């Protein structure tokens, strides 16, 4: 594991607590380190500082020095160096720490400033929390409760603004709720590189809108909903569906590409309602593509595979196929399977004496959070030793072996062989044992179909493009009639004559750790929520397909490719 370089530290005093923080930290972040909350709206750790909401006003002072001699001026009352407090409140977001900086966040001046800003923010706000989707996760609600006066002196007419503007296909805007923090504008412009949002009109009549003839339709538009501190920007998909406090949050990993975006799956009673990004400063910051957020819809798809027969009966059928075609079996594993599943796939292939293949799934990278490799876990297959070379575009070798009659049975794990380059005629020649979640041409042609679970219904780990192993947890119960992939794989391995292997993530890991050098000292439960970086040197010679994305630069092409 690579340790970051130790940054220069600066000692500051926040509400009487001394803390050393890295140089360049601002007061909001420094205060967070001593568990002091500095309320804010416009400030976002991953966006440019504009300092316009004025909620993070704090009282600030520097140790006094004699202007002539530069000697510290002591306060006889306390015996400590005197602090020159600035008579005006300063913004915490725009103030970077300097040695000896003193900050007060609870003084009367700060309290008064916060009460003032809260009152101003609420006077033209519709206060429609009972029908607002943001309720429960609204900064305006939280900070009004925490720092407001609790009553209103406003008896005038509130400003009237558009209530339901469709900014784009996925985002709905209520301008009356907007506090004009400009986070969404800065996100679109600086992070998504699509400058489509802006304010029109002036003063309190300022209104958020799209530029003329533009739409908020880029693939990162839902991040504006996430960072909107109030209920102004809402997800058209999630709007009016469910109160957020009823939802269970489960940490997950997005399977859209090898970036491995950290996510949170929000579910209630076995039904997923939305997916949002989870902060990981080394991977996705706080962002996530829109396309990854709708993947949960596959869980309740009508195409889901279900079995009427018991797992034992299905495994017995597969076992008899294995017996009849012994020595002529091939395994097609998947870059979408978890590390644990790939480990068991390797075990299954070994028990069958079969060669393991992997299906390549490449697309265009978007230079941000979607990489060119659309398999989330090709590196997992390398780490577990399921494969030793990168997958080819089509299963050419397997295709030849089927034609020559060398392979008579294929175990396909969640991969459509037709989409991977085999023909219907080839499939007709062989027996297919299919493990998968959704019906496709291969499952239709298969002799035995073993229904398995989607990523949301099971736990496991993926290794992303940085060789960072990241774990995901089970968000919802598995579909009736489908079985956990690990259970199926371990049963098949046993049926193929292999050693009995644990079929649960927790118990399987000690086995994985003993047999996999790169994962030698790890256990599933010990992997932090933000993942662990593995040593990638054994695979440095491979030329991966990924281009540059956020927090990832492809290794310089190795000389061998010349």
């Amino acid at each position, binding site marked *: 594991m690579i340790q970051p370089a130790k940054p220069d530290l600066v000692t500051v005093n926040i509400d009487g607590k001394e803390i050393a923080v890295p140089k360049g930290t601002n007061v909001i972040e420094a205060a967070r380190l001593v568990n002091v909350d500095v309320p804010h709206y416009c400030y976002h750790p991953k966006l440019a*500082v*504009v*300092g*316009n*909401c*004025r*909620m993070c*006003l704090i009282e600030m002072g520097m140790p006094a020095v004699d202007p002539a001699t530069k000697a510290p001026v002591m306060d006889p009352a306390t015996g400590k160096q005197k602090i020159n407090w600035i008579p*005006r*409140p300063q*913004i915490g977001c*725009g103030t970077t720490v300097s040695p000896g900086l003193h900050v007060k966040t609870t003084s009367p001046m700060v309290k*008064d*400033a916060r009460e*003032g*800003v809260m*009152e*101003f*923010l609420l*006077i*033209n706000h519709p206060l429609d929390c009972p029908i607002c989707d943001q309720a429960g996760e609204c900064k305006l609600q939280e900070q009004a409760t925490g720092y407001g006066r609790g009553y209103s*002196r*406003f008896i*005038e*007419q509130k*400003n009237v603004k558009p209530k339901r503007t469709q900014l784009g296909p996925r985002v709905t805007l209520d301008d009356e709720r907007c*506090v*004009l923090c400009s986070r969404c504008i800065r996100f679109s412009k600086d992070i998504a590189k699509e400058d489509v949002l*802006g*304010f029109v*009109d*002036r*003063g*309190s*009549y*300022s209104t958020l809108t799209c530029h003329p003839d533009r739409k908020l339709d880029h693939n990162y538009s839902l991040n504006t909903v996430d960072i909107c501190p109030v209920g102004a920007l809402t997800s058209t998909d999630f709007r009016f569906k469910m109160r957020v406090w009823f939802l269970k949050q489960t940490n997950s990993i997005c399977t859209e590409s090898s970036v491995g975006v950290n996510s949170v799956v929000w579910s209630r009673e076995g039904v997923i309602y939305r997916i949002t990004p989870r902060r990981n400063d080394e991977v996705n910051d706080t962002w996530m593509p829109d396309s990854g957020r709708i993947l949960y819809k596959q869980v309740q798809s009508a195409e889901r595979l279900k079995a009427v027969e018991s797992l034992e009966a299905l495994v017995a059928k597969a076992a008899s196929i294995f017996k009849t075609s012994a020595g002529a079996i091939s395994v097609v594993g998947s870059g979408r399977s978890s590390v644990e599943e790939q480990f068991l796939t390797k075990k299954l292939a070994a028990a069958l004496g079969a060669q393991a293949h992997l299906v390549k799934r490449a697309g265009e990278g978007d230079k941000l959070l979607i990489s060119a490799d659309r398999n989330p876990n090709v590196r997992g297959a390398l780490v577990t030793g399921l494969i030793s070379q990168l997958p080819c575009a089509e299963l050419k070798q397997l295709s030849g072996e089927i034609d020559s009659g060398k392979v008579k049975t294929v175990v396909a794990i969640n991969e459509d062989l037709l989409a991977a380059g085999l023909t219907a005629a080839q499939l007709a020649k062989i027996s297919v044992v299919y493990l998968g979640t959704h019906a496709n041409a291969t499952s239709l042609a298969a002799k035995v179909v073993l229904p398995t679970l989607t990523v949301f219904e099971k736990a496991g780990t993926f290794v992303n493009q940085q060789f960072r192993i990241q774990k995901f947890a089970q968000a919802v119960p598995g579909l009736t009639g489908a079985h956990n992939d690990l259970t199926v794989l371990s049963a098949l391995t046993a049926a193929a004559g292999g050693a009995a292997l644990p079929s649960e993530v927790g118990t399987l890991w000690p086995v994985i750790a003993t047999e996999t050098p790169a994962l030698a000292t790890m256990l599933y439960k010990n992997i932090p929520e933000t993942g662990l970086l593995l040593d990638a040197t054994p695979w440095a010679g491979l030329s991966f397909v990924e281009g540059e994305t956020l927090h990832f630069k492809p290794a310089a092409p190795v000389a061998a490719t010349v």
Partner: protein
Amino acid sequence: MPAPAQHRIIFKHIDEPGYTNDIDCYLRNGGYEVLKKSVTRKPEELIDEVKKSGLRGRGGAGFPCGVKWGLVDRKSGKPIYLIVNADESEPGTFKDRYIMHQDPHQLIEGTIISCFANNVKQAYIYIRGEMPEGARILEKAIAEARAKNFVGPNILGTGYSCEIYVHRGAGAYICGEETGLIESLEGKRANPRIKPPYFPAVLGLYQCPTIVNNVETLCHVRYIAEHGGEAYSKIGTPGNTGTRIFCVSGHVQRPGYYEFPAGTITMGVLLNDICGGPLPGRTFKAVIPGGSSAKVLRFGERYKGKRKVGPDMVDYDWGVEDVPMDFDSLAMIGSMGGSGGVIVMDDTVNMVEALANINAFYSHESCGQCTPCREGSLWMKKISARMVHGEARPQDGALLKSVADQIPGRTICAFGEACSWPTQSFIIKFKDEFDAYSEVKKTLPADRTVLV
């Protein structure tokens, strides 16, 4: 006592019969001679003259011009820009417009001298959107000066080149705030920038060091280059050197512009002797001394304290009429010299209605960036408009004051102060009127001037 004579150095030719704004007239009156001399001098010498002169910026804040030039980052290797702030929008102020309309070459000469002193290759005149005539005149004047080689490449054969461009604003008060102006000039919304880090002297226009000076300030620079900083500093009083132009409007016999050495006349002399006093049968009630955002002064109040005269501290006890018209004295009594716009109100003015007017202006002009100013200015407008046009409540004065108190010092730019100071001062000084307005309103004559 006869009215003291004006000392016109900037407004020397304003409204002079026969004086036109073309270059021939300017040259006949000794125009561009100062530039010819200046370009033979060392730039540092010119900066020193300005520092020696003690010239303070005439845009409103009164920041020393020499200090401002001294802060410019000259080591960055980036070009330095000079912006002429001609976005004169403070209600009650109308001095820069006269200069641009009637004596544009004075401004151009001052600008080129300042550019030469600061090694500026490009200058912009950011002129208020509502002054199309001024923009046309300046365009023409720049073309004339260019034809005579006072502007453009290789000025007067010295090898020094400088271009001046005129840029028209789109009509917003906030464009006069220097960082808002820079944003606007870059083609964006004029949202003022946060300082730090965006000090114009370091990260100004296009993230390059930038000097932003008021029109009148640059004309003073021309005068300083001609007569020397030493001579200039003898005009006026120490710390408040040079002349000041007062734009007097409102209820006086002779409103208009008047140029006097700073601090040499008092408010009483200005209003009574020079402007002819109140209209017949009326008495002065209040005066705003430095543009509508300055705190109002009430006739009849006394200001007491100690002030520095030479090396000594001297007690002072002034009425409004006794206050010397300079930056420091006006600041001492809790107001400001600002842009020199003196707004006079007599006993016919109802202060609640006057404030409603001012609040309407500031709420319309807030850029909307910072919460306190954006919401506070409109709230104050809504309250004062309701008092005037709808139901006034006895507690509204106190509410207004309390709203205003939540704004200044908590915003990115000085607009927070500009929009809250009128309300704060009106209510402190005319509390009786605000408290009683709900009753007074019932007895107001029906034929009085209808308020907007």
